[in-house]
């Protein structure tokens, strides 16, 4: 483990796939909060490892939550 290559990349898997994956819902603010940055921006999927289909669904849910003032558009 110590003598690992410096640029080793762990295989990541989508947090929304698998048997007991959470359902993406605009009402579940707690879940959505994990996928926005400190500033309230949607985190790109290369960082969160969400699959592209789920990322689209997630982005839609976050935007719905923002519209209902459940989540902020900007945080500063």
């Amino acid at each position, binding site marked *: 483990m110590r003598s690992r290559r*410096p*640029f080793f990349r762990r295989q990541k898997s989508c947090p929304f796939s698998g048997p007991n994956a959470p359902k993406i819902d605009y009402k579940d603010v707690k879940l959505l909060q994990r996928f926005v940055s400190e500033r309230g921006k949607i985190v790109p999927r290369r960082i969160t490892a969400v699959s592209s289909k789920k990322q689209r669904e997630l982005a839609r849910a976050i935007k719905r939550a923002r519209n*209902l003032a459940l989540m902020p558009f900007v945080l500063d």
Partner: protein
Amino acid sequence: MSYYESVFIARPDITAAQVESLTETFKGIVSENGGTATKDEYWGLKSLAYKIKKNRKGHYTMINLEAPPAAISELERNMRLNEDILRFMTIKVDALEEEPSVMMRNKGSRDDRGRRDDRGRRDDRAPRQEASPQEEKPSEGGDE
């Protein structure tokens, strides 16, 4: 007929009972136009993430509907006219939730535990391009 979820935010200076009567009015509009309201949830007076019409808080209510499109447009027209409504959103869903939604389930336990350790993880994750070895050591010390 399709399934819809309608959420509206009412002004904070009206009472919960008035919100209840608003909900009943809207359900009445839907049933007059040939739809049915299967469930309504009052999420309570929640603080808004940003100000809407100079209000910091609002009464959130969600109504689950099975209705024809004409009923939805009539419902939305009435919500638009009503001055007590700060905002509303009606979306089409594939299936209606029977059990209480996430909002109702989480209302009792308002712990920040989950959110805080997520935030910590996000802090070190967002700026870094590649994991530094020193950072990884403490978390994976167990498997040596």
